């Protein structure tokens, strides 16, 4: 029930704005999310690539993983330019909306496949473990791997669907736990493998290529005339080792301060971990599992590696169980990453009004874009059912989106070097200075390499080309139609953040929102004048200080109780800019809106309610800083019930004043 109107200058309605995008994660968590996808390929890439190109597969997998370093650098440059970045944003800024939509359509194909291949592969590992263990446990059952993997995969997808609906923080927590367990498994496996090599020796994988019947696609019959192009074909088959990198750009907006430094740290961690885990495991699998046995473990190669270690059978079985448990966890984590990454990509599209507005609806409790998550999960479930548990089929179809999104991304960042000559926070290395000009030779070389692999894959990976092109075409058409419909419905195309609004009749609601010992209140009004907010974000310590970003809706007269709590256009625009600023700095803010009949009373009441020791303002276009401070000092005194000191700061370009009362 709302209170009766009271005379005087008072806040009558308080609205706290929440969105899942206001929580930030460490670089370790960001790396773990990406690695859950990228490193999980260790569990299936060896089998798939060896089936395609023969036992030299580990060398090409290593080559692809080394190539991840420049691709990660590419993402660092792109993300540093656009906080809400990723391939869509970078390509749109560089080459226009059409190609951007095309690149995202291709990327969505791989996000759907990542979920499917990871979940199915996890099922295969579990089925393999069951079939290895049952005879020893005197259980006379056998699990049909493909059927079991389909059912299991659907369960995994359903689980992570629920997790993502609940928000990123919980999901990243799981990712970091999974990656810690993977690290333990890697240490155990590598140590045991070292012992096995010492006992039995090691057979280095050959360097010769042995393409399978299907792996040359439309180039079939030209095996002998391929020459050096064969290396590129083989490299293309191993390219699925680089899946998941786009997610790094998607989680960048949630990365905590210092953002760029943390992005670089995350990129380095991803590179080293994936290289060591996937590269070493692929080498060990070919070097330690006898050729005849290895084929039977094509779908669960790490199980084969465990069973090929030196030691008693029960110990091998224990290692297999450990490898399978960790594998199931990381592969499930990859499902999570794919859902998160695709949700991020779709959000970028939605911000540009390319997705239907209904899909941007926030979950009433968790504030996540649940309808987008539902869409992705539904497509993943459909793919799992359609593939009938065939990992190789999924692997063959895979990497279409990965390679083409990289090609578009590299091309876009390259073009931007010429189109937008503003100072970069970080640049891809290999730049040749010629007077005032700078030639991005490193970027150009990477683009050419990726483009060549993309073209070769188009010809050799038939499943990927046919299904990828079809999927991309359908998604592209959907995006184009949806964009046109949205443009017809709404004239303005400026992105507005979606918020959940929690309202109350008094400022006591704020006590639930603040938890740190210090509080700073930043008063904002004009979306074009957030200099002071950015300065406050720069200087405040997010560990110890809550930053409450405040605006007031001023209504004349005292009968304010019928005021609605929904935000108007100007407020939406203002808080969208606030969220963008918070994301840019990687620091959490608590946005709030109050309805009052006096802005100074509103600020004072809010600041005193949250226990602010500092109140920050921008330079006003209407009032002098003297007048602002005089009025604030008066209202502060008239409302203050204790003698706590407070600092008022006024910040603007070239203006910085502080006064303590």
């Amino acid at each position: 029930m709302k209170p009766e109107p009271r005379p005087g200058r008072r806040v009558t309605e308080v609205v706290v704005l929440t969105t899942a995008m206001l929580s930030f994660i460490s670089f370790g968590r960001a790396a773990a999310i990406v690695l859950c996808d990228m490193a999980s390929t260790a569990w299936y890439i060896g089998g798939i690539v060896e089936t395609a190109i023969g036992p030299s597969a580990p060398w090409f997998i290593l080559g692809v993983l080394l190539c991840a370093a420049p691709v990660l650098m590419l993402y660092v440059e792109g993300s540093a330019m656009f906080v809400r970045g990723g391939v869509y944003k970078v390509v749109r800024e560089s080459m226009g909306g059409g190609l951007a939509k095309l690149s995202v359509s291709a990327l969505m194909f791989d996000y759907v496949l990542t979920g499917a291949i990871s979940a199915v592969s996890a099922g295969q590992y579990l089925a393999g473990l069951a079939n290895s263990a049952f005879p020893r446990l005197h259980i006379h059952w056998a699990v049909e791997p493909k059927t079991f993997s389909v059912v299991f995969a659907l369960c995994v997808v359903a689980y992570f669907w629920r997790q993502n609906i609940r928000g990123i923080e919980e999901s990243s927590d799981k990712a970091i736990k999974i990656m810690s367990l993977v690290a333990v498994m890697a240490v155990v496996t590598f140590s045991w493998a070292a012992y096995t090599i010492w006992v039995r020796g090691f057979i280095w994988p050959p360097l010769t290529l042995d393409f399978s019947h299907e792996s040359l696609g439309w180039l079939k019959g030209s095996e002998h005339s391929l020459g050096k192009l064969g290396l590129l074909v083989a490299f293309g088959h191993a390219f699925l080792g680089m899946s998941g990198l786009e997610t790094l750009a998607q989680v960048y907006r949630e990365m905590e301060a210092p953002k760029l430094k943390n992005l670089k740290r995350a990129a380095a961690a991803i590179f080293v971990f994936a290289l060591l885990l996937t590269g070493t495991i692929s080498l060990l699998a070919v070097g330690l599992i006898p050729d005849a046995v290895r084929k039977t473990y094509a779908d669960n190669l790490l199980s084969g590696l465990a069973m090929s270690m030196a030691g008693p059978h029960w110990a091998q079985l224990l290692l297999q169980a450990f490898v399978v448990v960790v594998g199931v966890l990381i592969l499930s984590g990859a499902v999570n990453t794919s859902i998160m990454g695709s949700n991020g990509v779709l959000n970028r599209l939605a911000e540009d009004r390319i997705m239907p507005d209904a899909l941007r609806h926030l979950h009433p409790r968790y504030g996540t874009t649940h309808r987008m998550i539902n869409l992705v999960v539904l497509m993943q479930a459909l793919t799992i059912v359609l593939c009938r548990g065939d990992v190789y089929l999924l692997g063959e179809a895979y990497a279409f989106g990965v390679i083409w999104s990289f090609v578009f991304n590299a091309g876009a960042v390259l073009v931007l070097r010429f189109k937008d000559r503003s100072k970069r926070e970080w640049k891809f290395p290999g730049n040749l200075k010629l007077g005032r000009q700078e030639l991005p030779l490193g970027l150009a070389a990477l683009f050419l390499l990726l483009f060549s692999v993309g073209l070769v894959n188009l010809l050799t990976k038939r499943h990927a080309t046919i299904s990828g092109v079809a999927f991309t075409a359908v998604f592209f058409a959907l995006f184009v139609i949806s964009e046109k419909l949205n443009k017809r419905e709404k004239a303005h195309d400026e992105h507005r953040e979606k918020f959940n609004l929690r309202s109350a009749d008094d400022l006591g609601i704020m006590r639930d929102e603040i938890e740190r010992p210090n509080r700073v209140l930043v008063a904002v009004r004009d979306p074009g004048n957030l200099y002071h907010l950015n300065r406050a974000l720069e200087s405040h310590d997010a560990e110890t200080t809550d930053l409450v970003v405040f605006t007031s809706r001023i209504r004349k007269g005292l009968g304010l109780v019928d005021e609605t709590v929904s935000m108007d256009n100007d407020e939406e625009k203002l808080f969208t800019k606030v969220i963008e600023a918070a994301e840019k700095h990687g620091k959490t803010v608590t946005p709030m809106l109050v309805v009052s009949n006096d802005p100074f009373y509103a600020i004072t009441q809010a600041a005193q309610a949250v226990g602010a020791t500092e109140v920050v303002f921008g330079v006003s276009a209407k009032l002098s800083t003297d007048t602002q401070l005089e009025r604030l000092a008066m209202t502060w005194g008239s409302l203050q019930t204790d003698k706590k000191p407070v600092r008022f700061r006024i910040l603007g370009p070239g203006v910085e004043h502080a006064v303590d009362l």
Partner: protein
Amino acid sequence: MSWFQKKTPEPAADSPKTAPTSRAAKGLKVSSILAEDTILFPPEGSGKAEIMQSLAAAVCGKAGIADWATFLSKVQERETGISTTLDTGLSLPHARMDGITGILAGMAILKKPIPDPKQTDLSIRVMFLFFSPNKQDAFPLHLQLLRGVSSLFQPALIDQLTATSSAAAALELIKKLEA
């Protein structure tokens, strides 16, 4: 704008400890800047402008300043801007003046509230008018006084003040509250 201390941004945690507020501002008592002859009881029917004029004249007279009209015009100029009336019933006209070295203050107690001409939904029951030195280092003191006066003159005190009939009794009330 040079009256503020220019400083580099720093966390809020240490802000109260590094306060640039002057010592004078911290120890300032409202009762010490008032005198019985600067506490007025305007006759019923007086408007805000008249009361301000009477107060300016009284305050300047007490300080031996003959040109009270200049002081009045400065405070009137300030009043054309954002309101100085609070919803407690306190009106706080003020101005920063050249040529003075300390605070000059006076108070008017209205037996019958009058509406504020700029914000008619607010009533004036007590008017506290003051002048502070127009110097760089005096601005924190100016702000401190605004905060201190508005903090002191809460509705309970204003009720008591309007019930008094002499300047001495009013000053005594304030002294008692500040003790």
